[in-house]
């Protein structure tokens, strides 16, 4: 750094111009990020809405005509769309609930003091680190008809289900998809909740113990209420992620046997069938579904989120 004269250094800072300078620097520094997001996310979503209002010729590329809301009317009156919608909602609701219960159980175990706790935390990250595509292949090898692990085990223990073609039957296929998702993401949930648990002061538990509260009472009246913010954030993150699920059903079943999700059906129309207008309408409807559900979360759990953002702004 070049040396500055004594008088220059001692001069009182000119607050106002410094402030303006800082704002200018701030704007410059944030601009590249916002530019990327505007060009690759915001502009395309607007363009998607435009595409969804047109019909495109499959035979002559570039030929299109404005059809207004026709694509949406087609989509909303097709049983394929509603089938995918219900599948997506059921998948999200069931897998996120299971993840919450299993994740919470795992977090409570990991919060105990025992040797090898750090090792367990590393082990738990393994499913999280595995590519979703590989997760799907893993579960496909497990549920492979006859020679997979699941059927062999059921057969060896003479339990029912040994001759079920798991991925080939409606209902069972969705169950396998949910199982695969729970396996991959319950550990993530567990780590988020563990961070929440670690934020609860021990004194609270100690005080309750002195007052004679049982383990269950302490869990109900101390742990659970104080964990609500962490649970809320984890639920939102996981739900919004589950609603856009694509790779899992793509590899497991290609959407066959009741596993067609919204993202999958839209991608098929867009890429496989080259049905740009209708496919875009499906994509926009997927987007609206996700936004609608985020809105519901904010509406019903908004207090927690507001508290979090205030904390964010206050620091």
């Amino acid at each position: 750094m070049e040396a500055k004269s004594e008088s220059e250094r001692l001069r009182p800072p000119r607050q106002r111009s410094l402030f303006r300078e800082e704002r200018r620097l701030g704007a410059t520094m944030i601009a590249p990020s916002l530019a990327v997001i505007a060009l690759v996310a915001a502009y395309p979503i607007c363009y998607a809405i435009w595409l969804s209002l047109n019909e495109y010729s499959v035979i002559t590329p570039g030929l299109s005509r404005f059809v207004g809301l026709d694509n949406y009317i087609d989509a909303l009156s097709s049983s394929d769309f509603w089938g995918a919608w219900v599948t997506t909602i059921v998948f999200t609701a069931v897998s996120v609930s299971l993840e919450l219960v299993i994740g919470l159980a795992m977090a409570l175990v990991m919060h105990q003091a025992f040797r090898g706790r750090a090792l367990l935390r590393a082990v738990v990250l393994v499913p999280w680190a595995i590519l979703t595509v590989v997760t799907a292949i893993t579960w496909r090898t497990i549920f492979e008809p006859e020679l997979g692990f699941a059927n062999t085990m059921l057969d060896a223990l003479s339990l029912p289900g040994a001759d079920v073609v798991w991925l080939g039957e409606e209902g069972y296929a969705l169950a396998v998809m949910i199982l695969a998702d729970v396996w991959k993401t319950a550990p993530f949930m567990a780590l988020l909740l563990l961070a929440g648990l670690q934020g609860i002061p021990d004194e609270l538990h100690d005080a309750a113990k002195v007052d004679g509260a049982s383990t269950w009472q302490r869990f109900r009246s101390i742990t659970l209420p104080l964990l609500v913010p962490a649970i809320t954030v984890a639920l939102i993150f996981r739900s919004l992620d589950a609603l856009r699920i694509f790779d899992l059903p793509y590899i497991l079943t290609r959407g066959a046997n009741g596993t067609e999700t919204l993202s999958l059906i839209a991608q098929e129309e867009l890429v496989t069938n080259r049905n740009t207008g209708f496919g875009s309408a499906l994509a926009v409807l997927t987007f609206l579904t996700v936004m609608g559900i985020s809105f519901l979360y904010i509406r019903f759990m908004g207090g927690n989120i507001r508290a979090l953002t205030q904390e964010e702004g206050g620091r």
Partner: protein
Amino acid sequence: MRRVLIWVAVAAIVLFCLFPFYWLINTSLKTGADLSTASLLPPSPTLDNYTSIFEDAAFTKALRNSAIVAGSVTVLSLLIGSFAGYALARLHLPFKFLILAILLSISTFPPIAIAAPVFEIWTDIGIYNTYIGLILPSLAFGLPLTVYILASFFRDIPRELEEAALIDGATRFQAFRKIIVPLGAPGVVTAGLLVFIFAWNEFLFAITLTSTPDRRPVPAAIAFFTGSQQFEIPLGTISAASVVVTVPLIALVLIFQRRIVAGLTAGAVKG
């Protein structure tokens, strides 16, 4: 009694987390004939599946493509994201709340919503089926994550250090480069790891925006492996390929376990 219960629970968690991956490794070590036996150990372990995937040009090419795309996404998000993270953490910024809200909503955005227009635009401007065409969408989805993590790490650096530099005549940008970035290095490593894993995992754009094997990243290549032979899947080779692309990630996760947990909770709990 309590100890026993804890150990049973720990054993259950370990089994739950590791067994499926063990089964995949087990499958990858079986010979073609042994694939039809569901034994817990490969009866006659072989590395044939591994040698055959490394002889497959489509697979080695895919590994290279993924390394290029995920590597570029990581470097670019760290570069662009660290500026934004600093601005959000330390500077007076107009519309700060709005910017945070935009970032958060992008990270929850379903990628399918922009797949069609991006496909059309990329075709028009000639970057369909190119690296840059794959890098840009992943960058847009990776940036919010980077910015959140970096902002939360930068915020924890004591202000006094930066102020001391400013008093010594450094500009704000110099303070950012010489003080914040080096002190925030753990955050940079964390964000880099998470973005790399995210970009390596990305699948929707990988299959939608590529058309030839010489541009296809790993997840898309694996999908084509399974898709081409719907009824007779080469289970052994797919498993081997899956193990190969997963091992580096597991190694990263085990080495940087603490960083990753810190990043996940910073991005989610604080964000």
